[in-house]
């Protein structure tokens, strides 16, 4: 596939996501409001257990900042997984999947382009969800911090993309499909460390998170919002995340091919 064809594919995928969001006001509202809703939910539940000061003592970051960043990161990083798994399931439901399958476009390329428009939209939403709270808590410096977090979240989403394709393939291959998605999503939430710092996790879970690129990039972001600077350790984490993403690429390709083969063996549903 030529690069120009790839760009065209991203454009039409963007047209699809934009139509889905902009032509449905409820979807647009949900995207803008979701990080705030999730942040408030976690903060309220957290306040019942402990307090703002207790959290800040243990984690070293203001809980509002921690959870708005976490919610935003979750939304951005899961863009690929959500888009790939749910889009193919949706395609099957509305009857477009046979036409997608028989198109000459590589399904792996298609899967990877599917996530990009959602990522772009989510990144733009960062302007509404991150900047106000960062400015409120950190003053003008907050604008710069928020932009760094947005850039890091793009890195986090891109390095998570290949593992997301593997997870999406599992969802698509499994008989349960939507049920499998409902199991994998919270699991990713836990393993990413987005809502709960990695170093506070039990040893086994902590070891597993070592294989999740998202967990490393999330740790980088958490360290950044805590210390406001980049260290060698943070660059090492970014390197590990990148390496893992590359390692997962061939597996993700095999995963999608396995799903395609299963789909054809069972017979395309119309």
């Amino acid at each position, binding site marked *: 596939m030529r690069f120009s064809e790839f760009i065209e594919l991203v454009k039409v995928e963007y047209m699809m996501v934009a139509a889905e969001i902009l032509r449905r006001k409820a979807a647009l509202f949900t995207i803008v409001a979701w990080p705030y809703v999730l942040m408030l939910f976690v903060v309220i539940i957290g306040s019942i257990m402990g307090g703002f000061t207790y959290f800040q003592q243990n984690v070293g970051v203001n809980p509002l900042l921690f959870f708005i960043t976490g919610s935003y990161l979750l939304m951005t990083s899961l863009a690929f997984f959500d888009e790939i798994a749910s889009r193919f399931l949706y395609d099957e439901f509305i009857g477009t999947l046979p036409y997608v399958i028989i198109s*000459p476009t590589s399904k792996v390329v298609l899967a990877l382009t599917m996530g990009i428009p959602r990522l772009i939209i989510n990144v733009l939403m960062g302007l509404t969800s991150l900047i106000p709270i960062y400015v409120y808590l950190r003053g003008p410096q907050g604008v710069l911090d928020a932009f760094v977090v947005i850039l890091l979240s793009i890195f986090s989403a891109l390095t998570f993309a290949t593992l997301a394709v593997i997870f999406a393939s599992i969802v698509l291959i499994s008989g349960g499909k939507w049920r499998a998605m409902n199991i994998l999503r919270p699991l990713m939430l836990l393993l990413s460390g987005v809502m709960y710092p990695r170093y506070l996790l039990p040893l086994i879970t902590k070891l597993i998170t070592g294989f999740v690129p998202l967990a490393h990039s999330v740790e980088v972001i958490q360290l950044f919002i805590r210390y406001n600077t980049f260290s060698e350790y943070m660059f090492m984490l970014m390197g590990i995340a990148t390496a893992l993403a590359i390692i997962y690429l061939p597996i993700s390709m095999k995963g999608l091919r396995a799903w395609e083969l299963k789909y054809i063996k069972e*017979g395309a549903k119309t």
Partner: protein
Amino acid sequence: MDAIVVRDLVKRYITKKRLGLLKSKVEVVEALKGISFSVRYGEVVGLLGPNGAGKTTTIKIIATLLIPDRGEVYVNGIDALKNPREVRRNLGLMLTVEKGFYGRLTGRENLTYFGTLYGLTGQALKERVEYLMKLLELDKLGAADKLYEEFSLGMKARLAFARSLLHDPPILLLDEPTLGLDPISARKIREIVKSLAHEQGKAILYTTHNMFEAEIVCDRILLINKGMIVAEGTPEELKSKIPKLKVIRLLVKPNNINYEKLMDRELGLKPQVRNVGGGVELRLSVTKPEEVLNEVLKLLVPKGIEVIRLSIEEPSLEDVFIYFAKGK
């Protein structure tokens, strides 16, 4: 070279039949029992059969959307089972008319999306989309800038047909393309199908269970029933394969008699019965029309049944199909 060659195609489905809350029984359904046929360039071949005959299964296998248990499929000389990706470039597919597009996109956007998936880009894509919208009169119907979820069935069918033509494939697989359509949309699609085959030389495999449509659209017909091709030929050839068959058509009154039951019980005949204006029409496909007619009149007249009209006709394609479907 033939456009499509199918040899000894077999497909079995394993299904689970529920017998209760926990019990189930595995059943093997033989959808295709070794069918073979070919389609040449420049012809429309009709795959004609009732629901569940194996038409869609055949289309899906040729379209590389289903793997057969046995057999060979060649599309444009390419082995469909070994090189599905190559085969897909040569095919245009239309599976169902009522769905298969994105509801939040307009007609034009949907075609643009699928065109990009088929490798068209830039000006070429734009021109192709506009050409197809004009060809299928989607622009006239206002479907180009209307959301797909607001489409009528006729618009949906035209858009589905347009999609199958996006990459200008030499071979088209159309699965019941006019099912449920209004007469104008159905006629438009039939006209284009014929011109694509006869003027542009495309090979078209066209499934339908509408005899009238098969007769007017198809150059050749394959009668398929229970996974087997029971007869093959042009509509005229098929009719001539049952030379002794004649059709007795009777218009009788009153309407409130169960003629099917009466004739089956008294004469062992199974007429096709339908209510028409002015009475009930009975159609009987028989080899000795005079004898049967005599018996039928002897049965009906003494019961006070009025015979308004009576004729003995040559069989239609529908009669041919019923004849072959019943195993001659």
